[in-house]
């Protein structure tokens, strides 16, 4: 990209191209008032106001079904609506004809990995198609294509048919296609969903750079709370309504309070005490987090200590809440989440503890000449939540399938619930529960029918079936929904029903394959609550595969898979320490001109400096030195209002660091990203 063009620019907000003559500079690019959309009479979005300023990246954050797609399609002029008004570039979108007036000036990328691209066309043909559809002159097309493909690192794959690209590459190609006609506004619907963490970071970096350079305004939706930091301003959407809007920092301050993280020798008792006192409590591996509303650091510490009097407590830390804590608090305040307390669980059977529940020894699986899993070894003790982490195609699902006896390993062995799986696949199936990515439920059957079906499959008697059905409905919060069709339930309930079905025969080992995609934060917390209780109170061993880094934080122990191999095997905290030992600690730089700050830092030798919304992240081997060094460095580059603070590493940071290192060492690895 033209670095000079960037340096000329003053701040992060001014447009790079002069605004069209008819638009006043102050006028927002998009103005939505009282927007309402119904599908077959059921409201999907209700009374939403939204304003997007020229040149900003505006985030629309919310779980599945919040109404993000409806709103975005209406703004792109491809969806009718019943209530309110939508104005884009000052044009009121009130008919098909008026919508046509804005279409040459906007780009839209619908939801789904590569779903707006043509599978049988090559990378280059896809770009050409979008360009010519928008009448981009051939010369400009050649120039822009060369640049966009270079930036997205797709130029090596010009001839490759789209269907043979990885998920991350498809999304980068989609972005290039959306930008090829240089629209003033782009609308991207969940561009990072289903993309692995490394590709996701790359996508955000490219997007920020391109938007900045051309002064493009963007509306981007996401279901990941932790992506909020990527936006200059954001709107939180839930159940078709705006919960909060503004800069991420401002939203965060809407709910004052602190999060206290602690470890306890008796986590079950500590959890129960905390739950009785605070509205937001969650377990993250060995750590218990409680949100103390309205308190400062000292107050929060005191409140938690008071609540836990008599329970052994270690390592008590106070932290700022993240956006997800705020989101949940906002929902609880307006009672939109309908958070009923999970019913008391039926008494747990005496669970065997301490034994090894799952043991993989040099597990290997070949598909033809392709080695999907390469000598994977790990152990999961009874009562532990174990996370198998990795990008799509890293081999996670194949490991689960071998351990559950669905496919035979090519080499190595594994014991599950004390049974050698090669010898006794059927016995294993009676001792394990398995919940697949697709929530294997029958959508046309009711909740109870689904439970009874699974009870029947596992051969439960009539009395046991009745007892377990009661347990499942209580555990999953499904009371009152027994007669509803499973397919009509909201995501969170459907997920807990699927979990209940997997637990109906009281297995001692539970396998969960990518269990919580698309579920809202409250639903996700309830899900992890249940897993916590299962593992701590009933001693169930849980193996979870996921490519969501925020889920990894909930696990007691993690194994990171890359190209079929296990490349790291430790607790989350240990993994973070290891990365900090290798790469240094993470510093977050806030400033008035984040785009220029990235460039200045890179020039000064901080090669890994990366933009996160309005902040810049850099790794530092000498934290104290850099804390002192960076502010004057940026001041001398003419950047004002600089503050630098150390930041906790997230699991995503760990994952990106590990996988990037492996990729540079071994770029042609199978199962990694091409």
């Amino acid at each position: 990209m033209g670095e000079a063009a960037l340096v000329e620019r003053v701040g992060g907000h001014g447009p790079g191209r002069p605004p069209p003559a008819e638009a006043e500079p102050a006028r927002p690019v998009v103005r939505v008032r009282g927007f309402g959309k119904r599908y077959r009479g059921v409201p999907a979005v209700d009374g939403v106001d939204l304003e997007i300023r020229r040149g900003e990246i505006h985030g629309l954050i919310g779980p599945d079904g919040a109404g993000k797609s409806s709103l975005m399609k209406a703004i792109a002029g491809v969806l009718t609506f019943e209530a309110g008004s939508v104005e884009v570039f000052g044009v009121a979108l009130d008919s098909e004809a008026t919508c046509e007036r804005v279409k040459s000036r906007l780009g839209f990328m619908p939801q789904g990995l590569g779903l707006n691209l043509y599978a049988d066309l090559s990378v280059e043909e896809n770009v050409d198609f979008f360009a010519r559809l928008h009448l981009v002159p051939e010369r400009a097309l050649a120039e822009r294509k060369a640049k966009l493909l270079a930036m997205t690192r797709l130029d090596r794959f010009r001839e490759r048919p789209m269907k043979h690209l990885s998920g991350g590459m498809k999304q980068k190609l989609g972005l290039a296609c959306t930008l090829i006609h240089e629209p003033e506004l782009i609308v991207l619907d969940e561009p990072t969903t289903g993309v692995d963490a490394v590709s996701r970071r790359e996508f955000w970096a490219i997007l920020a750079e391109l938007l900045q350079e051309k002064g493009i305004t963007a509306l981007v939706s996401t279901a990941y709370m932790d992506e909020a930091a990527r936006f200059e301003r954001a709107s939180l959407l839930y159940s078709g309504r705006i919960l909060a809007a503004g800069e991420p920092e401002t939203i965060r301050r809407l709910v004052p309070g602190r999060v206290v993280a602690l470890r306890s020798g008796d986590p079950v008792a500590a959890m129960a005490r905390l739950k009785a006192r605070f509205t937001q409590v969650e377990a993250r591996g060995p750590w218990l987090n409680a949100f103390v509303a309205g308190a400062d650091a000292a107050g929060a510490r005191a409140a938690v200590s008071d609540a836990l009097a008599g329970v052994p407590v270690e390592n008590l830390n106070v932290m700022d809440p993240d956006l997800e804590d705020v989101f949940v608090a906002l929902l609880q305040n307006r009672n939109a989440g309908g958070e009923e307390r999970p019913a008391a669980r039926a008494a747990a059977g005496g669970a065997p503890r301490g034994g090894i529940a799952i043991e993989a020894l040099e597990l290997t699986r070949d598909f033809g000449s392709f080695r999907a899993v390469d000598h994977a070894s790990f152990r999961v003790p009874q009562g532990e939540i174990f996370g198998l982490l990795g990008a799509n195609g890293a081999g996670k699902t194949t490991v689960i399938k071998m351990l559950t006896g669905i496919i035979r390993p090519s080499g190595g062995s594994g014991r599950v619930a004390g049974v050698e799986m090669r010898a006794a696949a059927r016995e294993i199936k009676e001792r394990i529960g398995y919940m697949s990515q697709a929530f294997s439920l029958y959508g046309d059957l009711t909740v109870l029918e689904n439970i009874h079906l699974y009870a029947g499959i596992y051969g439960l008697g009539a009395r046991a079936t009745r007892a377990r059905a009661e347990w499942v409905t209580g555990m999953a919060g499904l009371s009152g929904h027994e007669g509803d069709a499973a397919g009509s339930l909201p995501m969170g309930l459907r997920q807990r029903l699927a979990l209940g079905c997997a637990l109906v025969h009281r297995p001692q080992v539970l396998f969960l394959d990518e269990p919580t995609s698309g579920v809202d934060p409250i639903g996700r917390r309830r899900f992890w609550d249940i897993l916590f209780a299962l593992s701590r109170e009933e001693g169930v061993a849980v193996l979870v595969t996921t490519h969501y880094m925020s889920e990894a934080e909930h696990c007691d122990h993690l194994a990171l898979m890359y190209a079929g191999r296990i490349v790291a095997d430790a607790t989350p905290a240990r993994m973070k320490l290891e990365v900090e030992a290798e790469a240094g600690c993470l510093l977050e730089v806030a400033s008035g001109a984040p785009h220029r700050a990235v460039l200045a830092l890179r020039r000064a030798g901080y090669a890994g400096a990366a933009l996160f919304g309005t902040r810049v992240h850099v790794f530092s081997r000498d934290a104290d030195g850099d804390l002192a060094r960076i502010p004057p460095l940026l001041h001398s580059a003419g950047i004002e209002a600089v503050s630098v603070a150390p930041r906790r590493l997230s699991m995503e940071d760990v994952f990106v660091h590990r996988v990037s290192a492996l990729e540079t060492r071994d770029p042609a690895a199978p199962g990694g990203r091409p």
Partner: protein
Amino acid sequence: MNARRILTVMHKEWREMVRDPLSLVMGFVLPFALMLLIGFGMTFDVENIPLAIVDRDGSAASRDYAYRFIGSRYFDFKGYLADERKAAPLLMDGKLRAVIVIAERFERDLLAGRPAAVQVLLDGAFPDRVRITKGYISAINAAATRELIAGYLSRRDGIPAAQANELLQPFGLEMRYLYNQGVKSDWSIPPKLIMFILFFVPAFMTSLRVVREKETGTIFNIYTSPLTRVEFLLAKLAPYVAIALVNLVVLWLLAVLVFRAPFKGSFTLFFAAGALYVIATTCIGMLVSVFVRTQIAAMLISLVITFVPALQYSELEEPVTSMDPEGQLITYLLPGMHYVRVIMGTFLKNVGLEVLWPEALTLAVQAGGLFFACYLLFHKRVKA
């Protein structure tokens, strides 16, 4: 209207299609294969009926009578059977379709002036064929009877046999079949199949390809682009009309070269009317795709609304005049019959536009009307 945009979409459509094996098969192999499969299979000529004879009499007269059937080109004589009980399993297997049983004392009864008994067993599984077989047997039997009487007359009155034969046919019936002198199915069925195949294949294909864009989400590229509705329809329909035109020529060649149907009229008229016809059927596919969301629904609906009419309401098997009024109305509203008339006119009758102009005009109105309907119903801003 912008030609570059139209060409861009057309080009993309074409490339996608030639790279998708399923589309290629549907576009080029399916019509060809259907023509051959149905053309060879669907014949209304009843010949070579497998026949066996049970001759219980074994006399000169019974053999003489039997030879009249054995020698006929309509029957394929499989042999004599000892008695009719042996015939039952063979009829059941379909190895025989007709059995003639000549009773004992056949010759004696005949000479004595009593009616001689002959029993015919027919496989009734295919009613149309049985009716025709029955006709053949009655005709052969009537001819045998007539000759017998003619011989008797000639001997009694001393007149030549030919004269006696004429005396027995006071009404000289002479039939001539126009346009298809041999009443051969091969002359009329394969040309009509051109209509049949080009009714549902283009509709099928178009609806599938457009709905696929909806199903995946690529249709949003169209919705959010400055491409106008007319441009979209033109660009999207053109490749499928072009494929259908290629098929029109291929199927015509098959009818003429493989099935040896005579083509007597103007190819230009046949082709031009065919072009209007395939525009109409392609637009039907487009209309289906406007209303449905999934490929499976598109497949079912376009099959029901094109396959059945092509079979039933298009003069493929029976003329429109033999239908009840509702059937007639449907037939007139659909393009099939109008094009079948152009096909029959150019293949067998050698008539031109002076006779076929109403059909040509109707096809033009239908093609235009269906395109307009697509225009009215296709929107770039949708409700859901």
